[in-house]
Structure formats: structure tokens, C-alpha cells
């Protein structure tokens, strides 16, 4: 079905996925339904991009496992896939760079694996050469040079991510601005949440609020990875909270324990370290 009026969107979710849960997967479904119902967008792909080990979050297990579990979880999805570019970098990467990389990848048929692709986008508004996109699962649409046919890569996240914009040194202000201006955010939050208030209280978010799509999650779904890991340490069942294949994988490899939870204990999170040292220079 041709839909020339709708802007094509790719949803990109960055995070630890330690491990991936049904809640993470629900974010994609909710976002897709929401954007379709606006009449303005057509979601063509979802990408799960697990963070690299260099992020140094407490309890973060090897990226190999986290990527594998995410792949198992999305095996029977016809539109959500896993990308391990971010996790295979040796250094931690800002979310903005990951967004840029994936946008670049959509535009050029031969993606390189280099950080070159994480450079800032050309100014929106410039016509681009339309090239066949082999990553596009949808049948090829009209190759018009209309700006509307350039797919947008939007950041998909929960309200906790949005509210983390306020944590000192976690995000660079210019990154937040560029994320909103060039990409856009789709933020899933619970009914009765404080995200709207948070946006209202922030000048920079308020300015770009048209680029922040707030999606209300009508089902209270609190399946956080932290709780999953806690349940596993206590020998409790995690069935029906994560895909069964993920549960089986965790069990087989005995991934989560008190030891694994102590990884990176006392280590400063990579973005905090990076932004603190940058500001000193």
C-alpha cells in the first residue's frame, strides 16, 4: 500500500538490555501503533542497540550475551531487529552518535563500520540522492526527492531516559538539542507519570516539545531488567516476563548472580567520566 503522505520512521532503542524483557519489546509495539494512528508516520523498522561494555554500568554483563539474548527475543518479529555496531565499539559512544550512524546507514547502501558515519547530518532540507535501501523490509516506494521520503530515525525510550536528561554530566546539552532537532524522541510512559511536568519545567525540552512524542502505556508494566536480575538471584521464576528463549539462554549460561551484579561496582559510569573530564579541559 502506497502511503506517500506518511513519513517513514525507524525506531532506535538504546540501553543496557541486561537482560531484554517483554517490557522493552512492548515499547516498540506501543510506539508503532501510536505513530501509525497519527496518520503522519509509517514505522518501517525497529532497532535494538545494546550499549557497549565500556559503559561500565554496575551489573552489566558481556555485550555478547546481551546481543544474543536480544536477537533470540526478536527472532520472530518481522520488523524489530538487533544491531551490534554500538556494542562492538571499544569505547562508549554517545547516543547521538548511534542515532547519526543509523541515519547514515539508511541513506547509503554500503555502510562502513567506522565512526565516520557518526558525524553530524547534513542540514535537513537538502535534497538527497535516493538510493535503494537493502535494509528496508518494505517494498520499495516511489523514489521521489521529496523530503518526506527520507526516513527519520527516532529515539525510542521510557520516561526514565527522558528524565535522565536532568542528571548532571550524563548528557551533553548540545547532544540533547541535536537529538530532538534532527531526530525526535518517542517516549513511552505510564499513566499518571511526571514526564509532562518534567518537559514543562525544562526550557530546552519545552522548546522542542513537538519533536517529543509522548505515548501513554495503558498497562502498568514494570518489568525492569533490575527486577529480573533480582528475581534470578533469589531463584524466582521469570517466566512470562521475558521471552521463553531468553529465559532458557540465561539458565543455560547461568548469566546472572551476585557476582555478576557486583561487576563495575564503584566504577564511574563512562558518560559521567567523559563529560567530567571534557569540562575540565
Amino acid at each position, binding site marked *: 500500500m502506497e502511503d506517500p503522505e506518511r513519513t517513514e520512521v525507524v525506531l532506535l532503542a538504546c540501553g543496557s538490555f541486561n537482560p531484554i524483557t517483554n517490557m522493552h519489546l*512492548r515499547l516498540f509495539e506501543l510506539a508503532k501503533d501510536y505513530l501509525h494512528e497519527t496518520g503522519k508516520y509509517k514505522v518501517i523498522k525497529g532497532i535494538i542497540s545494546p550499549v557497549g561494555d565500556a559503559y561500565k554500568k554496575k551489573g552489566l554483563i558481556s555485550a555478547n550475551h546481551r546481543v544474543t539474548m536480544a536477537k533470540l527475543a526478536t527472532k520472530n518479529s518481522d520488523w524489530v531487529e538487533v544491531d551490534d555496531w554500538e556494542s562492538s565499539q571499544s569505547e562508549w559512544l554517545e547516543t547521538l552518535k548511534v542515532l547519526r550512524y543509523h541515519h547514515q546507514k539508511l541513506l547509503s547502501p554500503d555502510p562502513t563500520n567506522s565512526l565516520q558515519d557518526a558525524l553530524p547530518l547534513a542540514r535537513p532540507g537538502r535534497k538527497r540522492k535516493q538510493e535503494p535501501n537493502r535494509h528496508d523490509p518494505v517494498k520499495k516506494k516511489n523514489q521521489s526527492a521529496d523530503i518526506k521520503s527520507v526516513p527519520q530515525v527516532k529515539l525510542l525510550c521510557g520516561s526514565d531516559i527522558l528524565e535522565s536528561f536532568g542528571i548532571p554530566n550524563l548528557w551533553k546539552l548540545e547532544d540533547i538539542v541535536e537529538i530532538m532537532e534532527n531526530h525526535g524522541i518517542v517516549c513511552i510512559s505510564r499513566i499518571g507519570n511526571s514526564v509532562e511536568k518534567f518537559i514543562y519545567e525544562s526550557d530546552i525540552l519545552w522548546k522542542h516539545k513537538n519533536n517529543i512524542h509522548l505515548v501513554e502505556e495503558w*498497562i502498568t508494566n514494570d*518489568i525492569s531488567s533490575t527486577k529480573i536480575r533480582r528475581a534470578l538471584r533469589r*531463584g524466582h*521464576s521469570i517466566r512470562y516476563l521475558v521471552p521463553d528463549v531468553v529465559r532458557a539462554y540465561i539458565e543455560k549460561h547461568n548469566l546472572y548472580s551476585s557476582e555478576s551484579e557486583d561487576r563495575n561496582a564503584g566504577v564511574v559510569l563512562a558518560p559521567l567520566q567523559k563529560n567530567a573530564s571534557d569540562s575540565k579541559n
Partner: protein
Amino acid sequence: MKSRIPLILVACGSFNPVTNMHMRLFELARDHLHQTGQYQVIEGIMSPVNDDYGKKGLVSARHRVAMAKLALETSDWIRVDPWESEQDTWTETVKVLRHHYNESLRLFQSKKGFMKNKQHIERSTEDSLSSQHSVLPELKLLCGADFLQTFKTPNLWKEEDIKEIVGKFGLVCISRAGSDPARCINESDHLTKFQHNIFLVKEWIQNEISATQIRSALCRGLSVKYLVPDSVISYIAHHNIYTEESERKNEGDLLQPLKLHNAAVNPPNV
């Protein structure tokens, strides 16, 4: 070491449709009961209610049982039992419990008889009933906190039934953060009397997937993936089960237990 009491959990409900949350109830209950050190949960039974219940939007039991079967395919201890749904009329919950308890006793007796005739008793795992051949199984009703509340609804339950359910069998009640089942128990004399027989399990990982919202989402063409097993989603789509029309079924009707009460109180003139 004292033998654990073998325990069967029975969940009664519409399961219209079955969701991941329904199945979580079983998992949570089992973990909790195992940690008391007193019980060994040997079986979980999902018992979809009879069509005759008359609840609004209730689709045919044939479908509800089929969906539950699909959902439980990967479970090695929970199964769906269609007995309740196959009766001619709606059956009181206490009768369903009695039925399944009697079935488990029959099985227990026949196994015991079988064991006596064997030359040597094989050493089996802790899970096997044969290693606890001296301990009678128990059966408890598994439910959510909202269920406890329904005991208060006038004429929905017979008093003697509540006494038997809570007194003879027992309840395992899963509640979410924010609900207050303890208060509910406190406000009821029957429940207070048998509170030792009510196991309260707190669900910390909130996952409130109401079947009503699932049906509503399906009618609107919204995704319910990861809330309901994929096999159930496919089945629903294939048979086009939930529609605006199905939602209107039994609209305006009284629930069967209430109808029965009315008939008992106001018998028709013969």
C-alpha cells in the same frame, strides 16, 4: 527432613483471553509456597468458566480453552482443565475445587496402591508424588486481590461456599503493590477466621495485563504482542474471536450466580 505437602493450585476465571499475567500468577504462587518450606507444588490447573456464567463479552469456552492450551504448551506443570466449561450449567467455584480435589485423591490412592505392589520403590526426585506417598495432597484456589474483594459483592457467593473454599481448601492470593488484601481479610469475619489458610503473595514486578484491555486493543487493531503469547495472538486472528459484536454478548444480562440467587429468593409461581 519433614516431607513437604504436595499442593495443587487451581485458578478459576474467564480467561477471556488468557494473558501472560494469568500465567505469572501461577509462577509467583509456586515460588512463594516453595519458600515457606512446607509445600511442594506439583500441579497448576487453569479452569475456564462455563459459557453459562453470562459475563459480558465472554466468548465460547471452546475458544477460551483452546487458547489456554496454546499458552500453556511450554509449561511443564500448569495445564488447562475443561471440566468446568463442559458442565451443562455454570458451576459454583467450590464445586470445581471439590471436583479437582477428588480427582487428585483418586490419583493419589491409585498410585499408592500401585506402589504397594511394586517390589522395590524407586528413589525418585523430590518432585515425584511417589516419594511422598505418606502425605495427602492439598488443593488451593489461586486468585488475584480483586477476587478477595468479590466476596463482599452481595449475593455473588453463598456463605457456606466461602467457608469451605477458605476453611477447607485455602486461598493463594496474589496482590499488586498498592492493593490491601490484609484489610479485605480484616473486614470479613469468615476471612479473618481462616486467615491462616490465606497465603498473600505480593507481586513486585507489576504486570497488570487485564483481559478487558486486551480485548479492547484487539478491537482497535492495536498490538498485544508480548502481553499474550504469540500462539494465542495467532489463534485470535485466525478465528476472528474478539470483535465489537463479541463484546456485546450477554449485554444487560445478570451473571448466573446472581440469577440463581434471585430465583431462590423469589421462586417463580408454579
